[in-house]
């Protein structure tokens, strides 16, 4: 079922700051935040294409924060 559960939670312990999610988000939801970590700046712009999730090589963009 498609519900508005995006953008996802970014696990700072897993993220290696490669910048792929920031570079390839078609609506620029992410910005470079504190300590070079991606920050979800404009969640309202998210179109749920999930490209950030698919292209995250570090498994850092997670479905739900409770899966920690």
């Amino acid at each position, binding site marked *: 079922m498609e519900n508005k559960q995006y953008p996802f939670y970014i696990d700072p*312990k897993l993220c*290696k*700051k*490669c*910048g*792929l999610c920031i570079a390839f988000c078609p609506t620029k939801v992410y910005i470079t935040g504190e300590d070079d970590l991606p920050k979800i700046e404009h969640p309202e712009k998210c179109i749920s294409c999930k490209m950030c999730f*698919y*292209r995250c*090589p570090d498994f850092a963009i997670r479905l739900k924060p409770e*899966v920690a």
Partner: protein
Amino acid sequence: MQGIPDSYSDYIAWEQLPHLWCAGCGHGIILKGIILALGELDIPPHKALLATGIGCSGRAGDYIACHRFQGTHGRTLAFATGIAAAQPDLTIIAFMGDGDAGAIGGNHLIHAARRNINITAVISNNFNYGMTGGQFSPLTPENSITSTSRSGKSESIMDICSIAAEAGANYVAKTTVYHVRELHKFLKEAISTKGFSLVEVISPCPTYYGRYNKIGNSPEMLNWLKETALPLEKFQSLSHEEKQKFFWRGKLVQRSREDFLNKYKKQQSAMK
């Protein structure tokens, strides 16, 4: 690829993360693609096996919660063939690097394709041996700078997809990690195909290949792949000189030649 399968988390060994791959390495994107394909095809972790070789890609098995097997360098397919013969109900995915599949394991690949054994080979082609310092492999493009070709690689590139197709593989496709949706589609089709299937995925190695060849970091390498990977039909219409500057992506072969075990069992029962 509409949603994300609910079982996604079950395939990942979360306690092993973060993985050892460099920032922006494409291996994680391909591994995630395999996991999503298995989830979408409803193949539970206990019914799947990931066989890996040596090198950066060889560590992929550490991060998944399905069965895994790590063999010696290049012998992934030889071990996977044995596993497929002993456990025909398992979905076997051989995850290899370009050195694994093209160089030391090239012969195994030809014969696995010829034998048409029920294995899905996924080649993560990052154009060099990342773990040992960026030496060139047979799949490195001509003229590339690597740590063993400082003035440019003199040898020509090896087309592993055409070799597998000629040898008799049932499914052969090639794409890049930039084209993730295509990657997921090809992985799903390859896993569902009975017999030997191969998906080559061009993946960035920003630490060595991207740096030596002045392509840049991971986002810049993905942009480079976006520009240089052309659909197969378009690539085939280019002249020989132009072909050297581009890669192709697309589906090369899809057929339904009888797989090895099926034929073997039929012949065995005919003897009785």
